[in-house]
């Protein structure tokens, strides 16, 4: 395993310490709960929290800041945080206006946040939990916990964060979360596996000429393992799965995101974006906003995901609003 890691056990607290060191004015930490929160939380506004396994950076703690999350906690790499961390995350920013917990739809995360939410309610905190499930790769089924939450999470955080910042009520912010989640779809593809630091070797084996279509952000398989294809062909597979699922129709205004899974460099993401933009034009979609970069990674997996969100004027305005997080360019 070749990674910038000291003791793998400390990987998560150490990267979090780095985030705090890089953002001393913006953020503060409660290291015992692997929790990062905004400084100066405004009690009159809805607080938005999240917390899940690590390895998806910038999700979750690097998305904390004005206009995005109010606080977030991190579990070990790919594992839900302990219940207490979730509870403390809610408590650390509980405002009079209430707390919205955004949970990416995984069993472990849901159970931890269910318990934390119940406990917080028992303490008199106004809190609502919302599940994000934008991944179209694996069809919903009676026997599973449902579709996974992946890069579409960014749009839920961003829109809810902007609404909360603008003073929306808890009900209104939940309605925004619902609207985004109902209109956002994602599918990903992996070219390589990733190596969780504590595990020390790849999550799955994949041939030199293979790719995993519909991969999850923890390396879960999706729709099929196929031979490697061209950028145009791969993008078409992702695009068709996403477009046909909602579906996105001619005349729709959309936000289009190409999200890198961690090991794919910027130029390749733009090659994919170029193909995706052409396909969107063919469908008759208007791309009103676009996003190319790393929003929800699977450690250093080579691959990408394609997300589309159907926009109306309200959502477009919310996405347009300023925000400030640990991820920035300048």
């Amino acid at each position, binding site marked *: 395993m070749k990674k910038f890691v000291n003791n793998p056990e400390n990987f998560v607290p150490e990267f979090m310490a780095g985030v705090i060191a890089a953002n001393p004015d913006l953020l503060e930490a409660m290291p015992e709960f692997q929790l990062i929160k905004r400084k100066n939380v405004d009690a009159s506004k809805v607080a938005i929290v999240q917390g899940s*396994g690590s390895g998806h950076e910038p999700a979750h703690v690097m998305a904390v800041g004005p206009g995005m999350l109010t606080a977030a906690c991190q*579990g*070990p*790499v*790919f*594992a*839900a*945080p*302990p*219940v*207490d*961390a979730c*509870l403390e995350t809610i408590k650390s920013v509980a405002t009079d206006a209430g707390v919205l917990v955004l949970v990416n739809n*995984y*069993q*472990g995360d849901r*159970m*931890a946040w*269910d*318990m934390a939410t119940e406990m917080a309610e028992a303490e008199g905190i106004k809190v609502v939990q919302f599940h994000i499930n934008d991944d179209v790769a*694996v069809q919903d089924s009676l*026997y*599973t*916990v449902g579709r*996974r939450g992946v890069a579409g999470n960014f749009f839920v955080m961003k829109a809810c964060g902007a609404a909360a910042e603008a003073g929306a009520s808890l009900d209104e912010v939940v309605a925004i979360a619902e609207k985004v989640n109902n209109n956002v779809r994602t599918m990903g593809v992996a070219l390589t596996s990733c190596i*969780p630091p*504590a*595990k020390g070797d790849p*999550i799955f084996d994949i041939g030199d000429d293979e790719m995993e279509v519909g991969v*999850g952000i*923890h390396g*879960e*398989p999706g729709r099929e393992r196929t031979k490697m294809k061209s950028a145009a062909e791969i993008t078409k597979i992702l695009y068709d799965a996403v477009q046909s699922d909602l579906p996105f129709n001619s005349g729709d205004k959309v936000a289009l995101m190409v999200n890198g899974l961690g090991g794919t460099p910027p130029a390749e993401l733009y090659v994919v974006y170029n193909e995706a933009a052409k396909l969107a034009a063919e469908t008759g979609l208007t791309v009103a906003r676009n996003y190319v970069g790393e929003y929800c990674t699977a450690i250093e997996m080579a691959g990408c995901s394609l997300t589309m969100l159907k926009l109306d004027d309200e959502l477009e305005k919310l996405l347009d609003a300023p925000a400030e997080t640990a991820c920035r360019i300048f």
Partner: protein
Amino acid sequence: MSAISLEQIEKTIDITCDTVIRNEKYFSDLDGLAGDGDFGTSLATGFKVIKKDLPEIDKSAIGAMLLKISMICSKHVGGSSGPIWGTGFMRAGMVSKGLTEVTYEQLTDMLGSAIEGIVARGGAQRGDKTLLDALWPIHDKMKEMDGSDLGAVLAAITAEADKAIDETRTLVAHRGRASQVGERSADTPDPGIVGIATILYDWCKHYGVDYTPTAAELNR
């Protein structure tokens, strides 16, 4: 038929800590076959704290002790195991609230209540390939027996857990991270079930109960 004392339960939990800590890597490796490889570490992280805190924690009653253990799970165990084991200990603790010893029937009810809590928490059904597929037959077996010979009970429930390993081996997991790998989870044992079976088998060894396991995972 004698009651089971707080001390006996404490001792058994202590043994359990040793089992979980010793098997950290093995349980994680098992989880790595179809899940995300964190089961052993998640559980061991919690049971290391339980082991350390056990001599000190509130032992005014069995319930108080179990609630404290549940809280340790909530604080230190990540992944699905945190809520599952935390809920289990909490529900068992609620049934034994204020008691310093429990009857065999009460012990059986503690397990029943823990199972109910885990089902309510995680929604698992029979055949979903979770540790409940070991706990359900164990609970059934306990209800069937009268508890006059606790050694016989232990041998019988260990056999149930042992059987559960092989009976669920070829199933596809429907809960937890392993459910996300679909067909790939077939032909791998469920780490939670192996965990339960390993713990019980170690109880057998410790309490001198003869038991010859069948599943390969107990014969290492």
